[in-house]
């Protein structure tokens, strides 16, 4: 091998290095967001299922509407949404990078993950901040009963 080809292309990888490299930031993000998510998710479960009288039976449209009317819970849920979606998407990206050998398939899957994550974050954020349980002008049949009292 060495005798046949003394001018072996070297180093193989350096030539392909291009663009900014976020791998270190991604690695740190995964660990930090993981810890924060444990706190946020268990806080969410504790508030909804144990703190609230009636537990899971009490969770209905009105309960969620009430939470979305409170800026604290809006920000709580939005932070949880962003961290969870980015954490999950990056995790799946890693799995795709590790296991999908075909370059084209890998490209398609990575873009699909990015698209899915972006759509979920945009829609989730929009709904959290603009949620209105009793939109004006809507048919009364489609609205919850408490809207009539407003």
């Amino acid at each position, binding site marked *: 091998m060495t005798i046949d080809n003394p001018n072996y292309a070297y180093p*193989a*990888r*350096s030539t392909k*290095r291009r663009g900014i*490299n976020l791998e*270190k930031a*991604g690695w740190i993000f995964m660990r930090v967001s993981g810890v924060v998510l444990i706190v946020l998710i268990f806080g969410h479960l504790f508030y909804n299922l144990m703190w609230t009288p009636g537990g899971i039976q009490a969770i209905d449209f009105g309960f969620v509407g009430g939470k979305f009317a409170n800026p604290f819970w809006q920000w709580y849920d939005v932070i949880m949404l962003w961290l969870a979606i980015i954490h999950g998407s990056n995790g799946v990206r890693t799995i795709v990078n590790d296991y*999908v*050998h075909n370059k084209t398939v890998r490209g398609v899957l990575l873009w699909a993950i990015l698209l899915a994550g972006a759509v979920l974050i945009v829609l989730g954020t929009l709904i959290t901040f603009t949620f209105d349980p009793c939109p004006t002008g809507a048919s009364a049949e489609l609205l919850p009963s408490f809207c009539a009292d407003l």
Partner: protein
Amino acid sequence: MTEATKETPAPNAEIEEEIETVVEIDEAEEAPQSFTVTLNIRRYDPEVDDEPRWVDYDVEMYPTERILDALHRIKWEQDPTLAFRRSCAHGICGSDAMRINGRNRLACKALVKDFDISRPVYVEAIKGLPLEKDLIVDMEPFFDSYREIQPFLQASSKPERERHQTIEQRARFDDTTKCILCAACTTSCPVFWTDGQYFGPAAIVNAHRFIFDSRDEASQVRLDILNDREGVWRCRTTFNCTDACPRGIEVTKAIAEVKQAMMRGVKL
């Protein structure tokens, strides 16, 4: 020599007899029993085969022998076309890493008695590097990664006298000095299997050896090289490398220490 002893009259016939019996008993007790081992070897001849094929060989073996001895016996007595690398045959040169019963090991350190010989022992080339013939792979991509991390001492002072180190400073990177570049770790890594672009555990181990060396001045250069899309951050800590290392290097730990050094700086 033996004849001369026989001709000489024994000074004490009884003692002579006793010694002989003792020797006989020893031989009877220690006489190693040979047994037949079936080796299933993944053969590939690029000039004949389209695909690698499994071929089985029956070899008469002793429990103290190694898989490398079985391969020798096959090559010398049964099929001289069998191709494999070996050099020192004592676990130092790192030539004969292969996948034996699904695990990367050195054939010269794998004792026959440690395998379940009631079933065939499967031997194949290490995975993730281009297969050239039988148990031989192209090691160049592996050595490319190794060369890229600059595996040599870089110090600006003139080498006029020894560069002193305390025992603690030397111990800091002792584990990673043990690497013999056999590629057992890198070719057991599922991330390396994907496309062979990942630097691989062996390159990171050898970078670790110099990054944490108090005499070296290019630690940051190596950290920058490994802070790559295909560098240390691709490690999934599956510990395959640590399990595969025939030298017992804690490879995954070394990779984790390099990651820590990238975030918090090198702590010697």
